[in-house]
């Protein structure tokens, strides 16, 4: 199944998975390390991200150039979102908004 990308460009996060999107959203307001990411995502989305899932998503996002590691503080490695990462997140959120708006409209039209 192929999907059209929005006007903002190609949605590289379309198939990245929920964890990757949540990590980017959490990093959007500043760098964080693993534990802070898990806590923040739990608060903002109510999702308990497992540590194995977290590291898998962090590695994937880093390979895509959407986040980058900062120098380690003790054992903890903070990450920050990159410029392409912020752009990709914007495109993805725009796409979600369009789908969300269309869904709400159809619910209204259907009178459900």
């Amino acid at each position, binding site marked *: 199944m192929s999907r059209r990308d929005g006007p903002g460009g190609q949605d590289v996060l379309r198939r990245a998975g929920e964890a990757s999107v949540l990590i980017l959203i959490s990093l959007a307001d500043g760098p964080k*390390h*693993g534990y802070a990411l898990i806590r923040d995502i739990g608060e903002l989305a109510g999702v*308990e991200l497992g*540590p*194995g*899932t977290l590291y898998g998503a962090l590695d994937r996002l880093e390979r895509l150039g959407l986040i980058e590691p900062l120098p380690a503080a003790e*054992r*903890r*490695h903070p990450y920050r979102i990159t410029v392409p990462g912020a752009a990709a997140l914007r495109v993805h959120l725009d796409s979600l908004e369009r789908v969300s708006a269309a869904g709400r409209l159809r619910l209204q039209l259907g009178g459900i």
Partner: protein
Amino acid sequence: MGGPPRAGRLVEGVLRCYPARWRRRHGEEAAELAALLIQDGAAAGSIAWNYLTGAAREWLTPRPGRRLRLAVCALAAVVCSLSIPAGLLASTGPAHAASTNPAPRHPLCRPGSPAPVRNASSLPAHRHPSTRETRHDRSC
């Protein structure tokens, strides 16, 4: 009850399932993160299970270097699987069926020549042409 140390050992054991490259990069932080989550009340078993599935994903995710190694291994396996039947065929062929000890090729023999080569003076001194000539009574 020894709960936390036991949970720590469980998580450490599971972290050993990750590739060495991953352990060098995330190992210490991952162990510390697990300890913090257990302190917060998360179940050690669920953390260990999550790390275990993460380790499986890590091994199954194709990487450029790993892909090359896999290709080399596959090529070696194909070469081995082709050479073993070829070796079996060669060893069970009709030419070798009669004799398990094939006659050594005579150094003085030339194809199509029933007689020994006469120019034996060029041979090293420790070789004995007379012996060679008597041996050459048999066919090359």
